[in-house]
């Protein structure tokens, strides 16, 4: 069946519900296409894997109208997509440096993530054919 190993490296550095969907849709789709996937969450992107992500991830001003559209299109919730990502083996790495800067702890984040620095991500990303930054 699959012969080559595809690898996708994603950096999530922005907050907001829009970013969360861009990141998680690409990540779960890539995993479904048999790719190895890792996401490096840094700065505002950390809110996507925060335990309080539901409160923290809001639509950008002017995009509030999309809420209705998300419902109509039956788009899964961020929590559901995160679960799906975990189930399909997507690696989620929280940026230790930003977490320290923000005065946060590992307990503030959902289970199943790893913490690491830029080198952890780069070590993985050097062999990736696809790198994306959101």
């Amino acid at each position, binding site marked *: *069946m*699959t*012969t080559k190993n*595809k690898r996708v490296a994603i950096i999530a550095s922005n907050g907001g519900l829009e970013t969360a969907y861009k990141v998680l*849709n690409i990540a*779960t*789709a890539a*995993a*479904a*296409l*048999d*790719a190895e996937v890792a996401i490096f969450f840094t700065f505002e992107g950390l809110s996507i894997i925060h335990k309080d992500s539901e409160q923290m991830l809001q639509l950008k001003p002017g995009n509030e109208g999309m809420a209705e559209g998300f419902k109509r*299109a*039956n*788009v*899964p919730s961020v929590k559901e997509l995160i679960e*799906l990502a975990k189930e*399909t083996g997507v690696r989620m790495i929280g940026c230790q440096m930003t977490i320290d800067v923000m005065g946060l702890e590992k307990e503030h984040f959902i289970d199943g993530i790893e913490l690491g620095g830029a080198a952890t991500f780069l070590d993985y990303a050097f062999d990736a054919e696809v790198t994306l930054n959101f």
Partner: protein
Amino acid sequence: MASQIHANQILDCKGLACPMPIVKTKKAIQVLEAGHVLEVQATDKGSTADIQSWAKNTGHQYLGTVQEGDVLKHYLRKAGPHEAKEEARYPHTITAGELMNKLEKGERMTILDVREPAEYAFHRIPEAKSIPLGELEDRAGELDPAEEIYVVCRTGNRSDLACRQLAGKGYRNVKNVLAGMAGWTGPTESDE
């Protein structure tokens, strides 16, 4: 479409948005038996392109899509672990090009297509007779032993098995078509 396309399993993705149809398809195909056909029902208009890309990247076979109202029915066949790599072992073969020449000359022959009915429905050599490999044991009697029989599948693997089965039943004029429909550039027809 005139005839119902047979699927071994149906996956309901109606009402689901991207990327859920392909995520669920991947899950479903993991537990499907190799060679079986999965029907994915979706209303996401992007799913036709997505399912094809998914199949290309995972090595499974996209057969085609039928639209019924708002529902898109995508047909996929699960590939086996060694498919398209295994060496054909039945010694008597013919290339797709040679077969086309014979057809053009109007030679009398039987073209036997041993793929699944869903594969046959979307894309086949005109006049080809359909007996899926799994039914050949019981239905071989429908074939005339006096006639030249050319056996075709997708890549030449299933037809290799079919040729050996027929040879075992005493059919002498049997040839395996290489490399199956994948190598066929002549005319084709479908149920549409």
